């Protein structure tokens, strides 16, 4: 770029210098904007999710509340409410309801909820995004009048308490994520119970015992480095072949005397995720152990402690905050993993809570996937609500990790 223009090899032309600075300025802006585009993408992503999770809905009642009772439900006694349920619902449906909780034990609010769900049966026939709800209000009401004359428009926040505590349903307005949240929690618990002890032991071996001159130790280290980069779906295939198929008696609970369950169980899913996060976990723990100063170990040896005594009472306690941060990050990875669980056989149509590690399972990312791929708009709405739940839990985990790291760094400086 710098051509020699005179004998010294320097170009003293101020215009040339000016041009160089100008190119520099342009590129500075380009570098900045590529960073800004990344941040913008994050913001657009979040906005587009929130946009889908709130908005107007058109609700059609299968039965008019006025025709059921002329008095508002809130003013009726429990006995009258039960009477309404008995008149309007078939015996079979009443039985399924009573199996969960007898009607007589329910409070007034629960009964009203039952009536509005099962008898009035409000159905969301159309939904709009937040953006449309704010800027195209008239268009929406005109459209509803034209195509759904019986429907009423109301503003709906799809992410509400009912959504969190309900189980799966084929109707989006009645669907909830309770089963999925419990499934996700159990999977993460199993994954951590598997990966935590093995991960820490491996990290201790590689950092404290293994001599890098031995080829086996180098091989283990390289292998762990490579395992981090293997696509998660491959782990899913491994889980399918090993946990679901080969170890089927174990993962379906047959070994423990439980019959008739599929080996596509929470245990299989959790172990697969455990294998997936293990290499990442080991690398994090290794880093934490490496950060413990050498002097600490030497002082302990100097006092006559053995290697294991040194590790147990000096190295590990100092490395705990780092290991903890690493494991929180591993958990946040485990919560969001979808592909391996699909391969291992997560199902989506599960309406009852997981009762043991051997029951079939679903997880938060799995139902997000399932709802996203459905054509109706309302499933998009609940998918976005579930995504918000997922992202909030991930962000709080990450915030916790950052807080721990900063807290630990500060206390170490103060020492």
């Amino acid at each position, binding site marked *: 770029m710098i051509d020699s223009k005179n004998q010294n090899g320097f170009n003293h032309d101020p215009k040339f210098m000016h041009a*160089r600075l100008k190119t520099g300025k342009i590129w500075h802006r380009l570098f900045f904007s590529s960073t800004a585009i990344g941040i913008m993408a994050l913001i657009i992503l979040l906005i*587009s*999710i929130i946009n889908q999770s709130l908005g107007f809905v058109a609700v059609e009642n299968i039965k008019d509340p006025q025709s059921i009772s002329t008095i508002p439900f809130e003013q009726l006694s429990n006995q009258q409410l039960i009477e309404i349920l008995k008149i309007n619902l078939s015996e079979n449906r009443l039985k399924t309801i009573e199996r969960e909780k007898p009607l007589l034990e329910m409070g007034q609010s629960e009964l009203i909820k039952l009536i509005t769900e099962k008898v009035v049966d409000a159905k969301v026939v159309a939904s709009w995004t937040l953006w449309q709800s704010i800027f195209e209000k008239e268009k929406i009401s005109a459209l509803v009048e034209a195509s759904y004359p019986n429907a009423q428009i109301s503003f709906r926040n799809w992410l509400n308490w009912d959504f969190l505590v309900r189980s799966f349903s084929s109707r989006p307005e009645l669907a909830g994520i309770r089963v999925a949240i419990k499934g996700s929690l159990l999977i993460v618990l199993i994954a951590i119970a598997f990966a935590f002890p093995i991960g820490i032991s491996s990290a201790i*071996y590689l950092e404290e015992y293994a001599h890098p001159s031995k080829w086996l130790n180098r091989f283990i280290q390289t292998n762990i480095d490579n395992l981090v980069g*293997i696509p998660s779906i491959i782990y899913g*295939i491994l889980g399918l072949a090993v946990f679901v198929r080969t170890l089927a008696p174990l993962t379906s609970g047959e070994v423990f005397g439980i019959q008739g369950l599929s080996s596509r169980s929470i245990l299989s899913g959790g172990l697969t995720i455990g294998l997936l996060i293990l290499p990442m976990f080991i690398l994090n723990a290794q880093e934490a152990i490496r950060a413990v100063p050498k002097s600490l170990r030497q002082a302990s040896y100097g006092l006559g402690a053995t290697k294991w005594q040194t590790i147990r009472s000096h190295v590990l306690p100092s490395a705990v905050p780092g290991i903890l941060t690493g494991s929180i990050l591993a958990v946040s990875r485990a919560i969001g993993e979808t*592909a391996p669980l699909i391969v291992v056989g997560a199902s989506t149509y599960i309406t009852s809570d997981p009762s043991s590690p051997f029951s079939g399972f679903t997880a938060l990312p799995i139902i997000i996937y399932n709802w996203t791929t459905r054509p109706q708009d309302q499933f998009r709405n609940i998918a976005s609500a579930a995504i918000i739940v997922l992202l909030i839990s991930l962000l709080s985990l*990450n915030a916790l990790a950052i807080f721990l790291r900063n807290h630990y760094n500060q206390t170490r400086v103060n020492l």
Partner: protein
Amino acid sequence: MKKSQISPNQKSSLFIKKHYRGEFIIQAIFFLCAALSIFTTLGIAYELIKESLLFFRTPGVSIIEFLTTTTWQPTIGQYGVLPLLTATLITSFFALLIAIPLGLGAAIFLSEYSYPSTRKIIKPLLEILAGVPTVVYGYFALTFMTPLLRSLLGADNVQIYNMLSAGLVMGIMILPLFSSMSEDALNAVPSSLREAAFALGSTKFETSTMIVVPSALSGIVAAFIVSVSRAIGETMIVAIASGSGSAFTFNPLKAAETMTGYIARISGGDISYNTPDYNSIFAIGLLLFIFTYILNLVSRRFSKKYREVYE
């Protein structure tokens, strides 16, 4: 009176012996845990190869047909992996087209231009972007990127499921990974090199692009290769946004299933063991495993190089 007494010397040697046995057992346990990772790799390789062999032994399926023909229709016994492979390559190409220039720009900005205070805000934001689960990106591709592309390029030209949308969103997903790895490489370049360049009269831009980036090149190449491997192995975005059903096409505006998308779709349904369908996901998985493992090995080589030079 005879006293059976152990001299203090003997006592301590017994103590040490006992302890050494304990020490040895503990070390052995730790070693076994560490060796488990080798079994993971071996397990992956064993299962993939075993089931792939079963697949290639199915009548009407041969490795040559698998690698060279262009129709993937398991229902009529056509097993040519090329359409799945091209779809994977096309989505990855668009992902890298977005992620590499933007990621490199962001890395140079963060390491060479930005103030520490700016970096303190931007880096965590990029980390959040990197931590978003891929299924969420898939949702984003289908509900935001696809409608956007359809309104920009015309709904007649762009199919509802298309490779372009999946690729672009995958690029956004890979961007923070590439930029943070490249930034590490740029940061590892000693400041003496920059100072020397400034002393010779270079501008900041010239220092960055002609001194710092070439010095960190092996690290940046390593980041690039890791990004390629990530793009090839990415599943959820393509499973949601790129369509199901294989198609041999080079038009990114059309739907085509990728290798990972196929594995996810087939294994997600009710699948019975020992059918060509079931075995075929292992054959494709093996191909995927070989690609990504080689890419990771190569990337390690490159990143080792810059670490050896500067650290």
